[in-house]
């Protein structure tokens, strides 16, 4: 989750020293940190009362905590959490999203000091960054979720150097161990039932700390997507990278928000949107592994050649097993919705519906999923889809809210559906959100079928 700003030059004013993480992700994480504090306070109150001799049960405590958590939940529009409910593949995937948010709130690391950055380089290369590069800016240019990005220059090339905070992988492990029991008890979930989801999130989070893996994946996806037009990947430098250091080209371009502020013409926005769409469809259907963090900070946009997209950060990549791919594609296929028997069969295969379900519950699930799939799959049913129509994203959000209100769904304490859907959903929602912001009109390829 690293972010780069626009191309630096000696003429540019130096960015202010990094005091905190500037993305909206932070606001969400902070929101959760706050909840964490309140939950912590509830525990303190609980034990204070007990110490004072009052007769309180642990259930009071959990109820108080759950209230805080649900409070946080309803305030979090557009976050990863929202994603899970929005696509409504499974409302009970939420705890996994919780765990992730919690963990992220926990391991938002403070900026690394200059000497610590030097230490990371000495550990890896036996040299300081000032010896390794021709030029190295000790002031970080951007925060990444588990480290920071420095600007460097070597042999005339501008480089982005990502440096990771020491011991992050360790703390993620212990944070999850810490958070898991709390999250489970507060939400009243069964550990065994949630395990695959937790496992999935933990694996992705830990992978994100492995820069060697990120380098391999970044190179691979770039190589296999080289034929796609208007797409740009940074070159990675293995000889300047290590377990906690990742060196790549400093790509030119602007983040979505700044880019949109330059008021790009519709044709450019369409081309950018098309490029993103084609890139993601190629990853999903041909590569079977996706850049699962389509966060605006991970793309650099510019108007050159009618619109060019630079793709950063392959820290979070989801590999899609063949059966999951087949299932996911079939669920979004235009003719599935019309055919109730087929939809039922697919949902059973996905583990969302079970033969043992009571008929009313089964109907409820079916109706809910039908609604959400028809919304999410809408772009696939039209040859050209206009993500600029504001009604579309609004109806997606409204759907999420509706689902939250359904008492029958809220009572379900048992997660369902494939754990692989967590990151696939996140990918789709991230992509849709980007395209909506771009107000791009995209040829989805649906007409050819």
């Amino acid at each position, binding site marked *: 989750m690293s972010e780069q700003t626009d191309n630096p030059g000696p003429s540019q004013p130096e960015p202010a020293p990094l005091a905190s993480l500037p993305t909206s992700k932070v606001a969400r994480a902070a929101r959760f940190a706050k909840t964490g504090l309140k939950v912590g306070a509830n525990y303190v109150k609980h034990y204070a009362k007990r110490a004072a001799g009052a007769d309180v049960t642990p259930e009071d405590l959990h109820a108080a905590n759950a209230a805080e958590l649900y409070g946080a939940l309803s305030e979090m529009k557009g976050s990863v959490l929202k994603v899970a409910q929005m696509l409504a593949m499974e409302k009970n995937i939420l705890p996994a999203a919780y765990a992730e948010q919690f963990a992220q709130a926990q391991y938002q690391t403070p900026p690394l000091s200059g*000497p*610590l950055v030097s230490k990371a380089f000495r550990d890896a290369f036996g040299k300081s960054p000032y010896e390794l590069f021709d030029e190295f800016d000790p002031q970080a240019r951007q925060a990444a979720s588990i480290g920071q990005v420095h600007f460097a220059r070597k042999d005339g090339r501008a480089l982005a150097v990502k440096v990771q905070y020491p011991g992050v992988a360790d703390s993620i492990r212990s944070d999850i161990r810490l958070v898991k029991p709390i999250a489970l008890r507060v939400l009243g979930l069964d550990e065994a039932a949630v395990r695959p989801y937790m496992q999935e999130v933990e694996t992705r989070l830990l992978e994100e700390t492995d820069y060697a893996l990120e380098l391999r994946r970044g190179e691979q996806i770039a190589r296999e997507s080289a034929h796609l037009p208007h797409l740009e990947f940074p070159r990675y430098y293995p000889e300047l990278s290590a377990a906690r250091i990742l060196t790549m080209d400093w790509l030119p371009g602007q983040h979505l928000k700044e880019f949109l502020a330059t008021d790009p013409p519709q044709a450019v926005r369409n081309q950018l949107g098309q490029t993103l769409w084609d890139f993601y469809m190629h990853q999903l259907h041909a590569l079977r592994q996706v850049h699962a963090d389509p966060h605006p900070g991970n793309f650099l946009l510019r108007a050159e050649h009618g619109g060019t997209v630079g793709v950063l950060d392959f820290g979070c990549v989801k590999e899609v097993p063949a059966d999951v791919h087949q299932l996911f594609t079939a669920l979004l296929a235009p003719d599935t919705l019309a055919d109730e028997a087929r939809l039922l069969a697919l949902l059973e295969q996905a583990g969302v519906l079970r033969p043992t379900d009571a008929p009313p519950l089964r109907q409820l699930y079916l109706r809910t999923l039908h609604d959400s799939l028809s919304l999410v799959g809408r772009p696939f049913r039209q040859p050209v889809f206009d993500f600029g129509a504001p009604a579309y994203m609004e109806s997606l959000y409204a759907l999420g809210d509706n689902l939250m209100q359904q008492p029958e769904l809220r009572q379900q304490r048992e997660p369902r559906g494939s754990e692989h859907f967590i990151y696939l959903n996140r990918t789709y929602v991230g992509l849709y959100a980007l395209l909506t912001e771009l107000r791009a009109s995209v040829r989805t390829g649906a007409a050819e079928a």
Partner: protein
Amino acid sequence: MEKDRIKQAYLDYVLRHNEPPASVYLLAQQLNLPEAEFYRYYPNFAAIDREIWADFGRQARTQASQEPVWQEYGAREKLLGFYFTLLEILKQNRSYALQSLRRSLRGMPALTPRVLDDFRQDFETFVADLLREGRLSEEVAPRPLLQEQYPRAFWQQALFVLGFFARDESLNFERTDAAVEKAVTLSFDLVGRNTFDSALDLARFLFQSSRR
């Protein structure tokens, strides 16, 4: 130099046998040296231990200050630079460091292992200089009387770091790095201008007002 030769032979012996030689005579014999010659340089083995530790500290300060950006560093970063360099040196000498600390603590369980006596003196001078520099750059708030105690407080921090390093089980002792970073940041937040100064200022003001 003869002195360095004795020091090196002692270090090798400790590393190989995990304890000091049984007597000065044995070490001198190994070096083909009359025992009396040894005492021209060191009164006993404990003095060599103290000197080796003092060398670690000196070496860390020299190496850290050779960093090209050292001059641009503030006091906080200089202290961090010192710790990180020291940890690198200790990593190369970890067996000896742990062995000598343990031995020193066993003999005299005090707050500060005696083996660190010389190291400590240098360290406190170094910190006092850094703090003076920090007061000029306003990183450190001037607090007469209290600030005389700072070097001792920072010594406790150094002991904390050494203790953390000794117990650290993470690969490459990465968690010690994080501990240093956080501990030093906290200490400079404490000695910098903060709530405490504002509170003191108000208290002083109220006290003066009440005497009018």
